């Protein structure tokens, strides 16, 4: 494991850009919003890095910080404008681009319609985390995670049947 907070942050950013991008896309629909939330999560991870102790897998830790940040995130027009200016100067670190695949765009749109906790659960499940890991991240029991995910997936499966008609 990296031995300094800065190295840890660099490792997180290098190893988990996809994880951060998926959280951002699930919680922030618009392009400006994505930049805003992306930067919020980077800042939260930067600030959290010194407190990280090797008590959990790094990915679990990144999910916790990113989801807490996403749940706390609220678009603010003033801050949003300031950050757009900042990102205009730093184009290499703008937020993730929307998915090219129409199936993924559709899936993100359905995920975004879910309430925040369900959104977090399906996001973690789609990233193939087990019930125990999801329980550790959310604070729910593993059994509760299973029940909720079953319900969410049923709803998504029913909606997915209409996908061909919509596209």
């Amino acid at each position: 494991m990296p031995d300094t907070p800065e190295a840890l942050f660099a490792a997180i950013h290098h190893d988990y850009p996809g994880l951060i991008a998926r959280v951002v896309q699930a919680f922030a629909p618009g392009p400006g919003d994505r930049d805003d939330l992306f930067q919020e999560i980077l800042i939260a991870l930067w600030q959290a890095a010194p407190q990280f102790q090797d008590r959990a897998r790094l990915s679990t830790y990144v999910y916790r910080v990113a989801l807490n940040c996403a749940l706390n995130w609220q678009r603010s027009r003033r801050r949003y404008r300031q950050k757009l200016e900042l990102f205009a100067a730093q184009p290499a670190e703008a937020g993730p681009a929307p998915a090219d695949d129409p199936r993924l765009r559709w899936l993100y749109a359905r995920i975004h319609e879910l309430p925040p906790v369900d959104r977090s659960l399906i996001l973690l499940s789609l990233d193939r985390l087990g019930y125990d890991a999801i329980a550790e991240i959310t604070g729910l029991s593993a059994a509760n995670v299973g029940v909720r995910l079953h319900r969410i997936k049923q709803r998504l499966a029913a909606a997915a049947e209409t996908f061909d008609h919509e596209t």
Partner: protein
Amino acid sequence: MKLETLEAAWGQQPAPAPAADFAILRRTVAPELRRRSRLLAYEAGAYLFVLLVYPAFSLANFRWFHPAHALLFEGVVALHLAVFLALLAYVGRRIGRHRALRRAGLADVRSHATVAAAAIAAEMRDSRAALALAPLLAGLALLSGYANHAGAYGWRLFGLQAGVLLAIALPVGWACWRHYRVNLKPGLARWQAVLRELEEG
């Protein structure tokens, strides 16, 4: 389309390339971090200023001005002491909440939501208390001015004091009220919705 197909597409989505140069990443995050540190330092500085200036002004007031009424003087001293202790308690609570929130950012979603909702609810209580106490504090300042100055310097100074007090209290009160309405109330509603959702079976 089947959900399994969508799950497979999800697994195959390309991850964005990380910044090739860590220096670029640092430059992206550092200005915002500096801005936040600056805001925090301003807030801490403002509290420190108030905590130092309030007793200093109170002591100077009692040392150099002779009260018109001895009983009034003792009452004003007791009220100033109470206000100072309340300020001290408020600053202590605010520091505690800030630290708890920083720690909770690393915790699981339920713990974080609980701490965040409690912190906002406490800040709302403090704001309501401050707004409710504002007339009392203004009254105390005017009473203090009346007790010490009115006899010696006349009503003109007293009127000036009242004017300065209003010029400070009205914008500060408006800013507090706006923060309460625009940030705190929706923030609490958001976290309460998350907590309700977590409690549902």
